[in-house]
């Protein structure tokens, strides 16, 4: 056994076998260091209401930080069957490391104009237009939009997904459908903290902190959430699902429609007081190439999450949420410039959680990126303004504004 592993490690795979477990091309390493200047309120990572990865206490803070480090293992079990396993470390405030994604991939040879592929395991559903690669890094900036920040932190189920692509005429269609589980708490952060903009994704079995909770919620909700959790009936009896249609007409534009429903039982609760949140959302997305290298991307998402018993015709929590971003990116010589505008809000009409938890705001981001062989340099300016009444319980003004300037050196091997 040892000799076999040594042989796999030592040299390139032979032409006779497609098994590549520990060859050089089965590994990727990426990471970044950054200098962060931020003002405004305490960050959500430290239990505050702040919407950025870093926070302050009103003054301007400048800190060097370790950003994210990811080690990707991409073993090839056969020419069509592989796997992706990603371990990540998130630096900065509350440094932690763990498993980010782990799934099998199956991509047989297409037959004519029909192509089938499948994935199964712990993975992000195909929602984001901003992320790329096995390490799921943000492509054109440091910080993703509010929508994709939320996907990264609360929407990463264990799923079995199949996709089929075909070309009717000169059009391209891709249909994706998945059954999923272990994402029953999705919606907790969205309700108690609201939207946020950061690149700190969820790690398997790790908890995400919540801001201070008011009565009566504080009596029945844990002060944290585990995004990877099955509460209640389990996968076999109550699987969730997601589905997507992507259409590309004979023009440089792609339109995507996506639906997610975790079908969690909103009355299920575990011993740690973590609840099932029945969360459902729809998204429409557009990506287009406008000529001269100019790219346009937009995602619009709206959904609803419910938790607790229904005693008065309303569940304890009934939160409708929505967000939209538009992004333009274009290379100017060796530098790529990217600008993005976000708008977001939540509306709470539950019997226990009302409009004091409503979250409404906007954000603007501008980034410049330059690539060198194994390195990228990114400078990003991000401003976010938001209002939520429950900040007053912590002695804060409901309206908070934060500006963050980051300079990042990103490396990949």
């Amino acid at each position: 056994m040892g000799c076999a592993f040594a042989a796999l490690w030592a040299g390139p795979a032979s032409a006779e076998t497609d098994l590549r477990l520990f060859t050089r091309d089965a590994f990727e390493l990426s990471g970044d260091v950054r200098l962060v200047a931020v003002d405004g309120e305490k960050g959500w990572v430290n239990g505050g209401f702040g919407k950025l990865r870093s926070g302050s206490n009103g003054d301007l803070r400048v800190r060097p930080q370790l950003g994210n480090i990811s080690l990707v293992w991409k073993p090839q079990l056969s020419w069509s069957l592989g796997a992706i396993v990603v371990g990540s470390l998130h630096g900065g405030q509350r440094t932690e490391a763990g498993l980010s994604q782990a799934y099998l991939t199956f991509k047989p040879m297409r037959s004519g104009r029909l192509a089938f592929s499948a994935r199964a395991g712990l993975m992000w559903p195909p929602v984001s237009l901003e992320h790329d690669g096995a390490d799921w890094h943000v492509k054109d900036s440091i910080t993703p939009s509010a929508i994709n920040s939320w996907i990264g932190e609360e929407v990463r189920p264990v799923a079995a997904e199949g996709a089929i692509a075909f070309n009717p005429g000169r059009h391209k269609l891709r249909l994706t459908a998945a059954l999923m589980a272990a994402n029953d708490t999705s919606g907790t952060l969205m309700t108690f903290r609201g939207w946020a903009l950061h690149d700190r994704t969820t790690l398997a079995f790790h908890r995400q902190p919540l801001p201070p909770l008011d009565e009566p919620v504080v009596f029945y909700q844990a002060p944290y959430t585990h995004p990877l959790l099955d509460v209640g009936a389990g996968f076999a009896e109550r699987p969730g699902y997601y589905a997507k249609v992507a259409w590309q007409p004979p023009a440089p534009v792609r339109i995507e429609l996506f639906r997610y429903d975790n079908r969690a039982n909103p009355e299920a609760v575990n011993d740690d007081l973590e609840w099932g949140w029945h969360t459902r959302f729809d998204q429409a997305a557009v990506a287009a190439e406008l000529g001269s290298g100019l790219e346009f991307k937009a995602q619009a998402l709206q959904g609803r999450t419910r938790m607790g018993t229904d005693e008065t015709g309303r569940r304890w929590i009934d939160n409708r949420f929505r967000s939209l971003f538009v992004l333009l990116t274009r290379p100017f010589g060796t530098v790529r410039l990217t600008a993005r505008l976000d708008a977001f809000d939540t509306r709470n009409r539950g019997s226990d959680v009302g409009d004091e938890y409503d979250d409404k705001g906007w954000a603007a981001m501008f980034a410049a990126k330059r690539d060198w062989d194994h390195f990228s340099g990114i400078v990003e300016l991000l401003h976010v303004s938001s209002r939520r009444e429950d900040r007053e319980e912590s002695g804060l003004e409901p309206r908070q504004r934060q500006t963050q300037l980051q300079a990042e050196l990103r490396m990949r091997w």
Partner: protein
Amino acid sequence: MVRNILFTLALAGAASPLSAAPLTVRVVDPSGRPVHDAVVTLYPAGNAARPARAAGRVVVSQKDLKFHPFLTIVPVGADVSFPNLDPTKHHVYSFSAAKKFELRLFAKDQSRTVHFEKAGVVALGCNIHDQMAAFIVVTDSAWTARTNAQGLAQFADAPNAPGRVVLWHPYLRASGGQLQQAVASGQRSVGFQVRLRPPPPAMAMQDY
């Protein structure tokens, strides 16, 4: 590289025992604008016909999720290597009748070679990245060239014999995917007016 092939093909033509003279092929669209990257092949009748000679090393690389070059002309019997210069794996294939093949997953700085023994058009794709596309025209005639930016292809030493000129373009609107015209003995120019489909967008469908 393509110039080398054309040079080789031209040398083959120079060996023709028949008298030779220039033949110019001009390709335009319905508005009269020149059409580049059309592949024109002269097939002289009878003894004047001459097969293309094997070229040197021909390479179709994969870089930045594109094939380079997009269009390659090779003689029958050519070996084409497909080096992967991308950091990701590729799975190059063709379903074309002229050559069906599949180069299963190969990684950065690895290469595979394919032998092309039959004339025809070979459409290339990648099973992983569906936006990747390219063409190899495998020719069995010594007089094969692509039109330049002015829509012109010239055979400096075409045999002074009757024959036919066949035209193919990746986006040609024509039944069978090609057009042809007869060439009379002594005819020194041929003109084609073609209608093209717009090129498909190079956007990816965001695969994983």
